Structure formats: structure tokens, C-alpha cells
């Protein structure tokens, strides 16, 4: 990779303005003896301007890396910048660099590295960016890589980003529908593969079969904002220890109008609600909100990459229904069922709750939630009005 003079010029100019410039392992200082230039692997001192230019030409990765982050991306301290640095495993906000990371392609994206959050120093990162660095964000697979060719609008070291469904990570691009306008993400995210509306953007039902390629950093962030709104902002806040969590009590008490009733939902029902709605199988966010500040829910919050800082509008809307239903008194009913029919009722509820209906084979009459079994039970146990023949027992 050849260095353009513009990158050297810009770096030189920035050092002159700042006096001392430090970025991603690169240090360029101006003192009485001239320029001092350092990287983790090399160092020069007492350079005049011509010597500085020669030295910079010898460390092109550090120079173009500085240019990309400081000039193309910018936005120091922003969620956008932090996210794009996370995409290529660059250290964020002064986090330590993992110098042992060798960028082995086989290791990229492996669970261990994900867990340790290992970051890469500039030379390793540059090596990895040539092949592409993959990251997962919910059901999205992001690849950060260098542009295929340098040109007038393609500066050396410039990154681009590819975005696709994690299920398509190994699919040939030619087999996917290609897009370049981030706004298309809104349409892709609207319906699931059965054509049903997805009111919850973080439901694990994103359709596959599409790809955005060659996105700029700003375009990648815009697309993700449409797929998973506000996830980058809250992830960034969490990393900085600034995530503001609004727990159930506060959220419920704030509601007015038809939602005024949700604060009447009993505590144990909030537990059931979290178990029903906030599991990984239903939502990719990790629930961080609890019943109250000092009162944690027992229900597991999930393992999602991005935090959920407050009950969402779907949960609040469902809570209204449950608050109304839970205000009903319990009664005792008597109905005739065989043991197997009782078991079948359980199987039916499970199948609906787990969204398993479509998987039950037509002729699998061993499954209690099989449609013929359900129709048989209805024919046998329902009365002419279509109700279960149950008799309320007097106290």
C-alpha cells in the first residue's frame, strides 16, 4: 500500500497544531530537537521535516489508520465511532490492546475471542482487514475490510463494511439480494419470513437472503439504526458504565391514559411477564431492567449483545392486558378429562408458547398438539356453544 502525500500532510499539519499527537500506538511529537515519532515497534527522534516524511512512509499502516479514524470517521467519543472501532476489534476509549492477538483468520469471530473482547494492534488489524473482520450484532453479520481498490475517492486504508444476515455469512454474494441504500433496511425488517409484521425490531425473526456491500461507516451505522434502533447508543453507554436503566416500577408508574392500570400488575405477574416476553427466543436484547432498583426479578435476562434498559412498548401494552386479567378472582371448575387429555392441554399450551405449531407433522398423532388431536378433543369435550364443558364449583 502506497501512502498518499495527503495523509502525510494531514498528519504533519495535525502534529504542528497539537504539538503532541497520540493515536492507536502512534505518537508524533514536536519538540526543540525536531520531530519525535514512535510506534510500539519503532522510534525516531530529532527528525527534520524531510526525515519525518521518510519515516512516516516507513509506517504506512499507522499513518492511514490515523487518517481513517481522525478524518474519515471522526466523532471522538461518539457511539458511532466506538461501534465502528468495535467492528474491526480496535481498542475503544483507551481500552488495552491485546498484543498477543495475531489476527489468525481461523480465530476470527470465535466464541473465546468474543468473550474476552480481545482487540488488535494496528499491524495485526491491518493484516486481518485485508481478509475482512467479522462481527455479529444480533442476527446481523458485519464484515469490516479495506476497499478493494484505491482511487480518487478511495484513500489508502479506507474501510468499507458489508452487512448481511448471520445465516448468510457463508453464502455467495451473488445468491443474495444486493442493496446499497441503508434505508432499505426498514423494509427488510418489517416482515418475518411468513410475511407477518414484526412490531419488535429485536425479535429473532429477521429474514435472510439480502446483503449490503461496500457501505461507508456512516451508512453502516444508519442501516443498523434501522434494523435495531438505539442498540448502538445503549451498548455504548453500557460500555462506559453510563447505561441508565429504568426498572418496571418506575416505567409502570409513569404510564397514563389507558396504560395507567399497568402499575397494578402483581409482582409475581411481572416475573411471569419477563419470562414470557424477555427471553432470547423472543428478543435479542438482554434485559437489564428489574422489578425495582433493589428488587431483582428471578427470570433470566438473556444473553443478547445489546442491553434492554427499560420495558418496551410491547411489554407495556401486554402488561395492560395482564393487569386487567389479573384483577379477576380465581374460581374452581370441574370438568371431565382423561389423564391423557389433561396432558394434551399442556402440550397444546407449550406448542403455542414455543411457536412450534408449524413444525408438528400432519400425521404425527402422538403429539398432543397435532391438529387432528386438537380437533378430536374439541369435538369430544366442547358443547354446542364451542365452550369446554366445565362447571363452576360453589365454595
Amino acid at each position: 500500500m502506497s501512502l498518499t502525500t495527503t495523509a502525510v500532510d494531514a498528519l504533519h499539519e495535525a502534529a504542528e497544531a497539537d504539538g503532541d499527537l497520540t493515536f492507536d500506538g502512534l505518537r508524533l511529537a514536536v519538540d526543540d530537537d525536531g520531530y519525535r515519532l514512535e510506534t510500539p515497534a519503532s522510534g525516531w527522534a530529532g527528525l527534520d521535516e524531510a526525515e519525518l516524511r521518510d519515516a512516516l512512509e516507513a509506517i504506512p499502516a499507522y499513518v492511514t489508520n490515523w487518517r481513517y479514524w481522525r478524518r474519515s470517521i471522526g466523532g471522538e467519543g461518539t457511539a458511532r465511532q466506538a461501534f465502528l472501532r468495535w467492528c474491526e476489534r480496535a481498542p475503544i476509549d483507551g481500552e488495552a490492546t491485546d498484543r498477543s492477538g495475531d489476527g489468525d483468520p481461523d480465530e476470527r469471530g470465535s466464541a473465546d475471542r468474543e468473550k474476552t473482547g480481545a482487540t488488535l494492534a494496528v499491524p495485526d488489524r491491518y493484516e486481518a482487514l485485508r481478509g475482512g473482520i467479522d462481527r455479529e450484532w444480533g442476527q446481523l453479520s458485519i464484515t469490516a475490510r479495506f476497499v478493494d481498490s484505491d482511487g480518487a475517492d478511495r484513500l489508502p486504508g479506507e474501510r468499507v463494511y458489508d452487512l448481511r444476515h448471520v445465516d448468510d455469512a457463508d453464502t455467495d454474494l451473488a445468491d443474495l439480494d444486493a442493496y446499497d441504500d441503508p434505508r432499505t433496511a426498514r423494509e427488510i425488517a418489517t416482515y418475518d419470513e411468513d410475511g407477518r409484521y414484526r412490531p419488535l425490531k429485536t425479535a429473532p425473526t429477521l429474514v435472510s437472503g439480502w446483503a449490503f456491500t461496500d457501505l461507508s461507516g456512516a451508512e453502516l451505522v444508519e442501516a443498523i439504526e434501522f434494523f435495531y434502533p438505539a442498540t448502538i447508543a445503549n451498548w455504548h453507554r453500557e460500555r462506559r458504565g453510563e447505561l441508565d436503566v429504568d426498572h418496571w416500577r418506575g416505567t409502570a408508574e409513569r404510564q397514563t391514559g389507558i396504560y395507567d392500570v399497568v402499575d397494578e400488575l402483581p409482582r409475581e405477574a411481572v416475573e411471569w411477564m419477563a419470562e414470557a416476553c424477555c427471553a432470547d427466543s423472543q428478543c435479542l436484547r438482554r434485559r437489564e431492567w428489574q422489578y425495582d432498583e433493589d428488587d431483582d426479578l428471578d427470570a433470566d435476562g438473556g444473553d443478547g449483545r445489546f442491553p434492554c434498559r427499560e420495558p418496551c412498548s410491547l411489554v407495556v401494552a401486554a402488561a395492560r392486558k395482564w393487569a386487567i386479567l389479573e384483577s379477576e378472582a380465581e374460581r374452581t371448575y370441574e370438568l371431565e378429562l382423561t389423564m391423557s387429555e389433561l396432558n394434551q392441554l399442556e402440550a397444546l399450551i407449550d406448542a403455542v408458547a414455543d411457536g412450534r405449531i408449524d413444525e408438528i407433522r400432519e400425521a404425527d398423532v402422538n403429539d398432543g398438539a397435532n391438529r387432528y388431536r386438537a380437533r378430536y378433543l374439541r369435538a369430544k369435550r366442547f358443547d354446542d356453544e364451542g365452550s369446554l364443558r366445565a362447571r363452576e364449583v360453589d365454595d
Partner: protein
Amino acid sequence: MQALVIAAHGSHLNPDASDPTYAHADRVRETGAFDEVREAFWKEEPHFREVIRTLESDEVFVVPLFISEGYFTERVIPRELRLEKWDPDLWESDGTEASDATLEASDVDKTIHYCGPIGTHDAMTDVIVQRAESVTGDPGVGEGVGLAVVGHGTDRNENSAKAIEYHTERIRERGRFDEVRALFMDEEPEVDDVTDYFESEDVVVVPLFIADGYHTQEDIPEDVGLTEDYTTGWDVPAEVDGHRIWYAGAVGTEELTADVVLERTADAGADIGDAVDEIRARVRSATDGDGGSGRADTNAGAGD
């Protein structure tokens, strides 16, 4: 840097409810007047609660994509945006005069210019007239034609009717249409009897709603008598009791609505350059060109 947030209701059940919000946001994006443009919703994502934190701009202009001042604009949106020191009195409005108020949001370090809803802005009058032009395909529509501005109307919110009556009066004063009437779904005078209120043979019916849904695509067409069954669609114009009724759904889907959004931000101090002229020119060329859509999309489902 300055950002625009368009705050709308959205729906958990109907994916079309947010279409106008996205469409107007895109039109504003294309003018380049704002560094950032973001949609936000009560029932969709990003929620009002989270939207401001997704912005990098220090100055944020929030425009509610609602018809009337009332519960959502005065209580829900300011509360969910965490607008400190919000008080409806800051708008000094009797129901149709809200302009803007400048506040801080407690979870972000930004200045929020909270604007009145689009439905009560003077520029919305032009959108209603533009709607009449679009639906009839006649840029000069007016002479010999009656215009019915239709609102929901409700006993629970007196401001709901005020917005409708406000624009009705403004259009009437212009003298362009032979007759102009405000009609309602849930209060008198009712849209069911639309032909009783007009002598003109041609009547353009413009519902002052933000998005198409249950009311504009099911209720009103049946109430007005355009069709017995909304699922079978209706003609535009349709013959009803000796009148020709021109109808094309929610005014909020009209392209010129993006202009009202921009006007709201300009009133609140946003620097929008000539973005308003840009949008008006585009709408004008579209209307002069193909004569407008002339027919409603009847596929939109119900909101919740």
C-alpha cells in the same frame, strides 16, 4: 449540528401506520437541511424514550406528526422524551397556536426545541388544498366544488375539533371553493350525512388524519356511502345521492406534509436554507405532471 426528530404514533399491529413518517423523513433527508433525521414512535422503535440518545447533534428539533394538540403532544411525548420543565403553558396555546418551546432532556446533554403538532400549523391548510388538487387531478380545483374537511372529533379532547375547524375557516376565507365544511366521525355535524351539507355537485372529502388505517380506509368510505364494503374498494369520484364525491384517504400521506414539518422547525429557529422551496417545487411539478394519484390505496389495515 442540528437534528430533526419526527415523533409519530406507529402501531404494533399495522405496518403501514409508520409509512407517512418514513416518507416525510426521507423527503427532509433529501433536502440536506438537517445533519441527522430520525423517526421516533410511541408504538414502534426507536421509541420516544430512546431516540434523542441516538443523535450526535446538540440542537434537536422534535416535530410531532399528530393532528391536534392534546394528550400525546402535551403529556406523552414530553414525558417520554424526559423534557425537563415542560408545561403545556409554555406553548401559550388555546388549542391551535402551539409553536415551540426550548427545553433540556434529562438523559442527554442537548437542547430540544419541542414544536407544536403538524396538524395545527398554518401550512397544513395548504396541504389540505393540495390534497384536493391531487385527488381531483385538477391544479385549479375550487370553482363549483365543495370541500369537506373531516376529523375524528371526540368528547374527550376539545382540541381535536379545533384543528379541523381552524383549517376549514382558513380555506373558507380564501374563497376558492364554493363551500367548505368541517365534518366529524364522532360528533355533529357527521360525515355520514356529507351530501346534506353541500349544494355543489362535486364534493372533495379530505380526512385530516396522519396515516391511513381503519378510519380512513374502512369507516369513512362506508359512512360516506362510497362503498357498501370497504374490502371491495370504491371509485374516485363515486356517485352518492346525486353528488360526485372525491376521496383519497389521510391528508398526512400527502407529499407536501414534509413542508409542514420543515415549517415547524423553521419557526423554532432551525436553519433549513431553501429546503421548503425545494419540497414545494417538487410537489408542484408532480401535481402538474401526472395529475395526481386520483385513487386511494385501499390495502391499508387498521391501526391500534
